[in-house]
């Protein structure tokens, strides 16, 4: 037994060492740095206590970024999960060309987020975009889309969902494939229709898949960065100024690594609380 443990430890050690060096250590370093500040007058780093955290919770632009990130997540996560599950159910339907549909639904997944954003930027260009041309055909005047503070976040939700649906649907398809067919057959003999089977067989059997997708989707959307970086620059009027994008700007554009560290610690804590709540609500009940 001891020998077996030793072998396991030896095999795990390299991976664990890399995780500690490149992932765990930076987290602690970030927490440590968040309590300091760089003095441009003294040209040295000085202890700042919780000043960076006070700034995070009093600076209106940071608070706006937190608000935007939360609003975005409250909308985009249910939308992505609901639609990707629906897509997975459609792709499970046995019809001719199922493989073809399963392949094309992967196209957005295969395209990098940067390229996807660039393509959507061209599509939504207020001056020469295809979307406005289509709207003009049905008599709707040109829209500003990403340049409109009332529309920008909605369009980021649309393009993020377009990009994410196929990916999350993959997990649901795998989960659906795992549901034992005899359960459906038994339910069918008892007279259950499609919707009853979905409610009483599919959903309970998919609980673990849902738990994984909900938590992973929340994480990926909380740290969303690319659309703001590539398309909107956080605007208009801060409408898409996601916290992750502000952290990036604070660190690398405004040269305030310590404040950025405090912001990322706050993001980590927020995320920890939210996914902790999700994990609790979706826990296995005996």
């Amino acid at each position: 037994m001891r020998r077996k443990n030793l072998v396991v430890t030896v095999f795990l050690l390299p991976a664990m060492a890399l995780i500690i060096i490149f992932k765990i250590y930076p987290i602690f370093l970030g927490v440590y740095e968040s309590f300091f500040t760089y003095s441009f007058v003294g040209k040295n780093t000085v202890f700042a206590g919780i000043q960076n955290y006070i700034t995070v919770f009093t600076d209106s632009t940071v608070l706006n970024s937190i608000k935007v990130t939360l609003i975005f997540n409250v909308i985009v996560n249910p939308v992505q999960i609901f639609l990707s599950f629906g897509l997975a159910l459609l792709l499970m339907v046995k019809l001719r060309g199922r493989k073809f549909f399963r392949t094309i639904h992967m196209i957005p997944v295969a395209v990098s987020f940067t390229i996807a954003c660039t393509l959507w930027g061209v599509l939504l260009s207020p001056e020469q975009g295809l979307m406005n041309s289509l709207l003009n055909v049905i008599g709707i005047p040109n829209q500003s889309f990403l340049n409109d503070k009332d529309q920008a976040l909605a369009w980021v939700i649309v393009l993020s969902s377009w990009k994410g649906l196929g990916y999350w649907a993959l997990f649901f398809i795998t989960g659906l494939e795992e549901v034992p067919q005899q359960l459906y057959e038994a339910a069918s003999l008892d007279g259950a229709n499609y919707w009853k089977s979905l409610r009483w067989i599919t959903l309970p059997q998919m609980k673990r898949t849902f738990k994984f997708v909900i938590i992973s989707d929340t994480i990926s959307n909380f740290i969303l960065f690319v659309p703001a970086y590539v398309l909107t620059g956080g605007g208009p009027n801060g409408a898409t100024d996601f916290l992750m994008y502000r952290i990036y700007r604070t660190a690398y554009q405004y040269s305030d690594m310590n404040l950025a560290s405090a912001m990322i610690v706050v993001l980590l804590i927020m995320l920890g609380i939210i996914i902790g709540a999700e994990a609790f609500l979706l826990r296995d009940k005996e």
Partner: protein
Amino acid sequence: MKKRSVLLLTMCMVVMTAGCASGGSDAQNPDNSESGDELNVLIVSDLDPLEPVFAEYGDKNGITVNVESVPYAEIFETIEVRMGTEEDTIDVLVADAPLITNYTAKGYLAPLDDYVAEDSLARITESSREGGTVDGQVMALPLYSSCVNLYYNKELFDERGVEYPDYNVENRMTWEEVVETAQQLTYTDDEGNQIYGMTFEQIDTPYQLLPLSQSLGAVQYISDDQTTTEGYTNSEEVVEAMEFYGNTFNKWNISPKIDGSESTSYFCSGQIAMFVGGSWNISSFDEAGVNWGVAPHPYFEGGDAVTPTGSWYMGVSAYSKNAEAAAGFVEWLTTDDETCQKTYDIMQNLPCNISVLDAIEADPENEGTPAALNVYEAMNTAMARPGMVGYEEWQSVLQKTYSDVKNGADPKEALDSAVTEIDSLIEKYQK
């Protein structure tokens, strides 16, 4: 245990993403050696036409000059990311004139005094030399200066029967006249293409838009002690200038709502009648076959004629392991008479080299050209952007503000909000 694992996983994902964000530029970075026979030069893509000049230095001196070109929209962030992490893979970098003070405060630039000869410094204009000097130390040297003119598409003017703007500075157009003319030139052509009356080249940038408020009398954008922009960056003149800017897009509809990266191609494709931009675009106009004319930069009626100035400087990275060779390259590129003439021939920008300036003035063939106009503007109407330690923050926030105004935000509210953010961001420089 499960919860802990989830939290750990989250932290890892966030940190990984942060790492990816900062690593994006690194991936494209040439693998620098520590040897002195290789120089890595970071430039903005505006300077791409100068690559043969850079290569010439390499050929002459038996070294390899690796040029990394970054689009204008990304150059400032690229410098912040890479210099902020103290990368030693950049030997020479471009610096926008007003940012030299900021880069010096952050320790990005190495002083050039020990490397550059006095004779070389004497070959460039005093004002441009001062622009690269911080606290008595030469931190960067000017590649060239700049000026902005009003370019117009003669064919579009002819089509609408509108009189060309006058080249003579005595008959310089006012912005009010520009709007009136642009309204006549904003129309849908026979093929259904929307033609716009005017555009700025560098849309949403302080470089191009400050002259609007300066023409209305604004002289200062930050307090003397550099602690606040309240009452300066949102002064009456600045608000009025921003109202004008917003109106070109939202009230008069004479300008397309595009990015600065698209403006030149719009003018080149005949979709814009008047283009307020720099002479560095002339080669693009000619390549596209635009029948263009040039006129002086407009001003507000009752105000002063003001033109933008200052341009790219070249500096040596404080983290370079080839500082001496890098400084030699910068000295040759920015002060050598022959090299500056070549740079001017390619870019057609206002030079800082005295001998090249003299040659332009003396050449009768330059009469009526942008070159002669630029020399006049440089001597009479040029006004530099404010030099400040927090220029990067100031510029970044203002660009977003200009963009918001372009998209319909109220100028006063947008500027008030901007100064609050800027003041918060520049507070760190006082500590």
